[in-house]
């Protein structure tokens, strides 16, 4: 029997998801043995034309990481969808928009203006021209992808069978998914989140939790936390209560607050709103002035509560 075909693609992403796959270490050889890898731009020399030449639905599984930021990302999302039987949104960006999705708090125009004109490190040439999709050069016309106004998650562009959350997904979890697929068991229902738990990060976190009564919040540099106590108890905004389990609380174990990369827990539509709910329960004040002072200590609430999930949240973007 022919080996099942596997494809990996990166859209708007940092490459961390690819490294997470390589972090399977020697098990990557098992992956290469079990699958026929037909497309993996970051590691192997296949071209888009090779994929276009494939028959529809000829790829068994495509692990697609990265958000949809520009026309190239979108084109490849449609292409991989057409060629794949099972399309997996792999990692926070494909699943929820991820960190690139924070760009939804601004506009394309503002981004271009800052990057190509206003930022201190920019030397303005040619009157601060913005990138053009088509440029005429002596050698011919150059075409580059068009950057979109908003960042989208993969499932906002094409239908997706499964999601594997994480920034990046933990190699152990990736392996558990691969192992499951190789075992030949029936695949879970479409729309399932694989390689993650169904509780919250706090549930896996070994730090000692007490009754929470918070009057002060600290940024990580302002405090040396006790490594045995819950970080939220100590006034560090830890996204654990509003984040799905699956990573085994890696960050809190290293004395760093959870940033929420595994996305909202089951039955939660909006990670940021859930965090507001959680913090509302544990702050120990009710006078408006005192609350204002406490909230002022939470710097950049929207960026903190939606670090990875903004495009996939209910409101998706800043309303201009």
């Amino acid at each position, binding site marked *: 029997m022919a080996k099942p075909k596997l494809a990996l693609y990166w859209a708007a992403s940092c490459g961390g998801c690819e490294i997470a796959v390589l972090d399977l270490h020697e098990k990557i050889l098992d992956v290469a043995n079990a699958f026929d890898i037909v497309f993996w731009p970051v590691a192997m020399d296949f071209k888009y034309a090779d994929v276009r030449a494939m028959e529809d639905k000829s790829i068994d599984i495509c692990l697609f990481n990265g958000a949809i930021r520009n026309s190239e990302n979108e084109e490849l999302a449609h292409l991989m969808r057409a060629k794949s039987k099972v399309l997996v949104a792999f990692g926070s960006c494909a699943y929820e928009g991820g960190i690139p999705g924070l760009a939804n708090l601004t506009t394309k125009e503002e981004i271009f203006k800052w990057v190509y004109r206003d930022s201190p490190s920019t030397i303005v040439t040619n009157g601060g021209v913005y990138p053009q999709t088509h440029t005429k050069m002596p050698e011919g016309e150059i075409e580059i992808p068009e950057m979109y106004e908003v960042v989208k998650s993969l499932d906002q562009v094409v239908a997706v069978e499964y999601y594997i959350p994480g920034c990046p997904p933990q190699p152990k979890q990736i392996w558990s998914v691969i192992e499951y697929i190789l075992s030949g068991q029936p695949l879970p229902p479409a729309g399932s989140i694989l390689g993650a738990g169904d509780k919250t990060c706090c549930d896996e976190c070994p730090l000692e939790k007490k009754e929470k009564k918070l009057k002060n919040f600290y940024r990580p540099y302002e405090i040396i936390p006790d490594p045995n106590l819950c970080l939220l108890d100590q006034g560090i905004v830890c996204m654990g209560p509003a984040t799905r389990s699956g990573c085994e609380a890696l960050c809190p174990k290293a004395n760093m607050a959870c940033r929420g990369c595994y996305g909202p827990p089951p039955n*939660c539509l*909006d990670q940021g709103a*859930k965090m507001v709910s959680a913090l*509302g329960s544990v702050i120990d*004040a*009710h006078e408006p002035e005192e609350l204002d002072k406490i909230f002022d200590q939470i710097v950049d609430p929207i960026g903190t509560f939606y670090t990875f999930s903004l495009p996939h949240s*209910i*409101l998706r973007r800043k*309303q*201009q």
Partner: protein
Amino acid sequence: MSFEPKIIGFLCNWCSYSGADLAGVSRIKSAPNVRIIRTMCSGRVDPTFIIKSFQLGADGVVVMGCHLGDCHYQEGNYKTIRRIPLLKRLLKEFGIDTRRLRLEWVSASEGDRFAKVVNEMTEEIRQIGPLQLKNDK
């Protein structure tokens, strides 16, 4: 046609819902723009409900609960009083006018206050205009 604001009202079972009821049986006139959803406590109103209301077309959301100290569950409304201002900070950053979200205390005996809050808010949202979310493109 003039703009009629759609407002979702989350009213706690023990005080504010009774307050709204009192306004009704006392025949106090109030704007018909608030669609009431009864919750057991204002503390039950998950911020997700509020954001979801905006997404589904509400121009405003009002949360009503018992006065502080009167909560049937002792401290449910103390959670609300912390959640709403924090949520307002998020809404501001989302570019949504924070006047679209209100927290009001209405006891079971305050039918007139219920009517006043509803009328005031309806007028205010009418001034601000409809909420048109751009979240599909």
